[in-house]
């Protein structure tokens, strides 16, 4: 089927009108304003205007000690709170040379992967809801409840966990959590089969995503896109394999890469990533050792003068945290290089000439969390 695209004929200054997409959205994207210049049905120019939820996380890093910054890290991207905190504690541990016991690393991996699955479930459900199918998001939230219940039992929170500490985690996990995670894996695999039949195979859904929103690998490179957007364009780059951190190099998992560059490719990358996360959880739950859950941390934590970088693979892409320290208890500068900011920046070029509903489908396939863009 031919997907309509605007063929610019004649005078480019033909009559266009400007409308706003947002900042109030019916979908779960957040407060993002996109100024659209439309020629009838087609988008001539789409200009995202972020900043409606700028909360100055980077500035707050300069006024707080390293330990006091921990709650902030969960709130930058609230759906991938564990992985973001992982990046921050990883950076501090790298700079201060703090040892993390093996049990704590295993706990971190299990919780990060559970968090990744729950984040992908929200992104998936919200995407289908944008397309008009209101049922799969509730099935996704049912699965997410199981993950959140598991994580609530060990951390006490359901969304913004402040669970990791420098040198490990703040509290140990009990056998119930390990058994629960082990039992979750086959349950989730069964549900993924159902979602494949319900959504992935559905012809109406396929027509809405196949061939829509092509983003070439060259465009990704130009804008610095990362995560499933990049892997859906054929580039095999995942921080867990390219720059291994924690103990990810001890697990056997694959990186799903699709070459078609359209929205369907990004969709399939996320679905396969859930399966790979389940593999990691399986292996980690089988091998988790006994031991302490937090290493030794000096009472007053000061990092040596200089820069430290640490990158993790979050649900949306590669998060890089750079801490510039001047030897004091508070950081001099904390720089957050968030994945959604760069993923959004390619929307302007990618959506040119598309029909509006297709552009919305494209934005949903980028899986944006707006607080991540504005920080």
């Amino acid at each position, binding site marked *: 089927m031919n997907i309509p695209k605007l063929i610019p004929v004649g005078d480019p200054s033909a009559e266009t009108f400007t409308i706003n997409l947002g900042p109030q959205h019916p979908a779960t994207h957040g407060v993002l304003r996109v100024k659209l210049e439309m020629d009838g049905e087609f988008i001539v120019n789409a200009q995202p205007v972020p900043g409606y939820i700028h909360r100055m996380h980077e500035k707050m890093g300069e006024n707080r000690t390293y330990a006091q910054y921990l709650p902030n890290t969960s709130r930058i991207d609230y759906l991938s709170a564990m992985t973001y905190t992982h990046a921050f504690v990883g950076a501090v541990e790298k700079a201060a040379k703090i040892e993390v016991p093996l049990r704590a690393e295993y706990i971190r991996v299990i919780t990060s992967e559970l968090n990744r699955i729950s984040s992908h479930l929200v992104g998936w459900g919200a995407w289908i809801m944008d397309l008009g*199918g209101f049922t799969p998001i509730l099935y996704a939230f049912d699965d997410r409840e199981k993950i959140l219940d598991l994580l609530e039992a060990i951390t006490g929170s359901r969304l913004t966990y402040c669970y990791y500490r420098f040198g490990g985690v703040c509290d140990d996990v009990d056998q119930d959590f390990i058994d629960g995670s082990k039992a979750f894996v086959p349950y989730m695999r069964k549900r993924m089969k159902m979602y494949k039949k319900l959504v992935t195979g559905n012809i109406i859904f396929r027509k809405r995503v196949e061939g829509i929103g092509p983003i070439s690998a060259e465009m990704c490179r130009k804008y610095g896109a990362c995560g499933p957007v990049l892997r859906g364009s054929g580039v095999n780059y995942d921080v867990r394999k390219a720059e291994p951190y924690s103990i990810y190099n001890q697990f056997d998992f694959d990186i799903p890469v699709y070459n078609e560059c359209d929205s369907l490719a990004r969709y399939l990358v996320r679905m396969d990533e859930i399966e790979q996360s389940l593999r990691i959880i399986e292996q980690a739950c089988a091998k988790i050792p006994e031991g302490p859950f937090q290493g030794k941390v000096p009472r007053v934590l000061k990092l040596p003068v200089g820069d430290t970088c640490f990158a993790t693979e979050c649900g949306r892409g590669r998060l890089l945290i750079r801490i510039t320290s001047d030897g004091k208890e508070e950081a001099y500068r904390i720089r957050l290089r968030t994945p959604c900011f760069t993923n959004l920046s390619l929307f302007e070029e990618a959506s040119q000439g598309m029909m509006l509903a297709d552009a919305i489908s494209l934005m949903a396939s980028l899986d944006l969390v707006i607080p991540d863009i504005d920080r």
Partner: protein
Amino acid sequence: MIESLTHFFATPWGVLSRSLIYLLGICGFVAANAAYLVWVERKGAGRFQRRPGPTESGWAGLLQPPADGIKLLSKQLMAPPGSDKILFWAAPLMVIAPPLVCLAAIPFGDNVLARDLNIGLLMVFSFGSINVMALMLGGWASRNKYAIISAARVVSQNVAYEIPMLLVVITMIMVTGTLNLQEIIVQQGGGFWNWNILRGIWDFSGGGWGHIGGNIFAPITFLIFYICMLAETNRAPFDMAEAESELVAGAFTEYGGMGFGVFFMAEYANIVVGCALATLLFLGGWQSGLGPWVGTHLSSLGIWGTLIGVLCFFFKMYFLIFSVVWVRWTFPRTQFYGLLNLSWKILIPLSLLTLLLTSVTLKLPRLF
């Protein structure tokens, strides 16, 4: 007593009072359906999503529609400045009137219908096309560029889907040979194998072994009719026009309060008319399907027979309405060009093919 009633209804006063009873009955039926189909939809949506739906207002949420109605009634009716006031307020009226009129010709049971018209089917379809014009009027009179874009889309969608719908209806008319709705149902008596959805494949009505039915694609014909009915009533997965509100508002954006409520009621009334038509064209209407044990005219069993017929009709019609709700909550929306592609490139060729094949199979026995 039945005889005295029949005598009364033959007199001029009786004719008038019978018409009035039917008028009030149909209005009440449409009103009750419009209100409580919302309840069915919300409870159904909840159940498909593994949640209970409305439970707090009244037992099992049954007082939710009156609560919504009171809320809509209490809002201010306001027309946007500069809009065409007459057309603006005429649009909701024009949208609710056609389903009311169409129901006058639809038999709910054996001889339970307001007017037994010889051209009943034609009347239903001619009135059914008016609501498209009403939507266009509503969009135009709103003086809102997004409303008019949405209204234009609705019109193109409805026009595109009327063609295959009418083609399949013509196919069914060729098989049944009459436009009289009561006649069509009587022909489907004698057992569920005589229902038009199956009669196309093999026809027993001539007695003996029967012969090849008129329309061997009858189940596919039913499917085409069902899809067109979904598109005509702007239901998911074809509700691009109203769900455009994810970005801009739909064709009803400038209507508030009961003005919007009337459009909403009209949508459900159209669903009722569409499902009623599907039932009586394909699923035997008020025929019980129990075969030769009850005969083709249920009223021959007296008042209870007629009641059973009415119940059978409602059962089939509400099953189809449930399936409309089921389809809505399962699938995402089609893209607009996908919708039009489906109609022009798939449904119209298919319905033309069935029309051609039906005419061939109907003519063949005559030739030999």
